[in-house]
């Protein structure tokens, strides 16, 4: 095993996985609104139509329900379709096909059919996206048996999951990507480390930081925030956070979470969506059904405020969790409310500050 590390952006990882899918698997087609235009789904499908032909990478009409049914029918007859929704919000129009047919195709007919396909859905944040361009529906999909729901938080989780989905997995996979991750750079071991367990089993969670004081379960971009906050807390106050990247919202590693919470006794869940009936709820259920006494303090959950997303920046900043709150909650959980640690109101992270829409 070589230890050569490469640095690639999330966008490059997406592009690589799309490129690999097309080059390695002749049955792959990428069908989505604008996948062949000059913006190429925020750069993740750029020039692939030119490279592989418009028969394999093509634009489709604005017909989400129909298009999803078409992907399912195509999958049933030998293609591997990759679909894209440039906003997660639009996937609601395809909910019937995703939930009533894709998720059930294999089971409902007694195991005789398979529907292998990938739906990429993008979630956003910041810069006035407003109520209809800011939603994050992982818990809706993960409630439904039959769907694999993932939220890649890094270049390698993209590469592992997408390559596996296309090459090995035979059912529908829903992947929710965060637009603000696209410009992040990541250390990637994917190509050097050919034996990674996650290549064979990507639909699970990752322990990405070991620590003893508190367990942070995070999804998507909140994993990055968790890392930044944890680094800061360790550097400044020797608070040692354990971070689990939940990744597989429908198939997360329960044992990993339970083991961690047993060790730390403290749990904070940071997700990109609303908290009610969301990721924190599900993690709480797992803990409560196993042994609630492992919790030595109340659980804290971070997510969107229980409102539609307002457009104005002033309110939008309150709508989302900032890392000041994240930091504060961790300190309070670990050190108690009277912790005496000086906290200055810290700014939002760089990505949100520098990001300028529209996207």
């Amino acid at each position, binding site marked *: 095993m070589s230890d050569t590390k490469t640095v690639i952006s999330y966008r490059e990882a997406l592009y690589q996985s799309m490129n690999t899918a097309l080059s390695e698997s002749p049955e792959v087609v990428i069908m989505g609104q604008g996948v062949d235009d000059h913006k190429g789904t925020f750069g993740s499908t750029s020039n692939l139509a030119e490279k592989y032909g418009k028969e394999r990478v093509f634009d489709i009409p604005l017909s989400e329900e129909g298009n999803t*049914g078409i992907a399912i029918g195509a999958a049933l*007859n030998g293609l591997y379709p990759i679909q894209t929704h440039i906003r997660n919000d639009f996937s609601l129009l395809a909910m019937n*096909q995703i939930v009533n*047919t894709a998720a059930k195709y*294999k089971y409902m007919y*007694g*195991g*005789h059919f398979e529907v292998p396909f990938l739906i990429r859905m993008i979630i956003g944040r910041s810069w006035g996206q407003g109520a209809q361009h800011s939603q994050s529906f992982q818990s809706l999909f993960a409630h439904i048996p*039959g769907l694999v729901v993932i939220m890649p938080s890094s270049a390698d989780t993209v590469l592992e999951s997408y390559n596996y989905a296309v090459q090995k997995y035979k059912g529908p996979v829903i992947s929710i990507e965060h637009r603000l991750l696209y410009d992040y750079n990541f250390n990637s071991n994917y190509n050097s480390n050919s034996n990674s367990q996650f290549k064979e089993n990507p639909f699970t969670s990752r322990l990405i930081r070991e620590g003893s004081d508190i367990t942070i379960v995070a999804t998507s971009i909140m994993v990055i925030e968790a890392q930044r906050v944890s680094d800061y807390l360790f550097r400044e106050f020797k608070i040692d956070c354990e971070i689990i990247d939940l990744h597989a919202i429908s198939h997360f590693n329960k044992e990993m979470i339970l083991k961690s919470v047993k060790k730390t006794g403290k749990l904070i869940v940071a997700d990109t969506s609303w908290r009610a009936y969301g990721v924190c709820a599900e993690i709480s259920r797992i803990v409560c059904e196993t042994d609630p006494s492992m919790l030595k303090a109340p659980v804290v959950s971070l997510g969107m405020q229980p409102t539609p997303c307002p457009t104005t920046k002033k309110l939008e900043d309150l709508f989302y969790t900032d890392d000041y709150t994240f930091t504060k909650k961790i300190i309070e959980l670990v050190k108690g409310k009277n912790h005496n640690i000086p906290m200055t109101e810290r700014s939002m992270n760089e990505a949100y500050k520098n990001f300028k829409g529209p996207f």
Partner: protein
Amino acid sequence: MISLYKNLFYQSLRIRMVEEKIIEIYPSDKIQSPVHLSIGQEAVAVGICNNLLKTDLLYSSYRSHAYYLAKGANLNKMFAELYGKVTGCGKGKAGSMHLAEKSVGFMGSSAVVASTISHAVGSALASKRLNKNQVCVATFGDGASEEGSYHESLNFASVFKLPVLFVCENNGLAIHSTIDQRHSYKIHEHAKSYNLKSTYIEEGYDFMKINSLISETINEIKLTGLPQVVEIKTYRYKEHVGIGDDHHVPYRSSKDFDNWKSVDPLIQDKTLINEFSEKINAEIEAAVNFAEQSEFPADSELFTDIY
């Protein structure tokens, strides 16, 4: 060699007799799943499927017994499925509303109205991309054409020039709701606005006529690779779901029913009925027997085939 007429008659009669058997069994509660009978509509399924190869793919709705049989799927497995047995085509997990049989190209039947129309389009896309030379068929009711995905499916198939045959079985009803309450358009006229060829047959009881039109249509689709729509007027004899008659309810006229029956070969052609009944009955008895004798799925089956 048996004549075309006799062959199609035989197939249609077989479907009717199978469903009449279901009616007979139903009160015993051995079939515990909602059934949507095709009695009165058999000619449509037979006229279509007679022109399809096993490799041509067909998708239908919950009202699918006729298609399952016409497409050549196994009768034993059908009764076993209705009985909820593991030997059924869907291992008992499917029931009446979700019959399917991959080996004969009967690809699915959904209980959500219109939801399989787009599947046929997608399969045609795959056929075209992978040079499989299949025709893919979506059959659906008049009600289904009201769903947005019907519009989306017609448009996609036409823009991408896909070999799909859309067949609307227009029985004039969606449950108890008549078509004039629901449609501002004529199905076969509306379809033309998507730049595709569309035809209409009024005599949905006439399997010969349907067969010959569909034969022509399928040939054209194979030749041109372009989608077409066929609308066939037909008549549902039984209540929407279940085994009862409901002409006593004033939502439709029993005069229409009488007219339809008066031209229905499966009622009128007593000679052929007599000729074929015995053989068909024997096959049905054997299938029912097979179903009765079969096992229910093991408990562990609850958790298989999800991912």
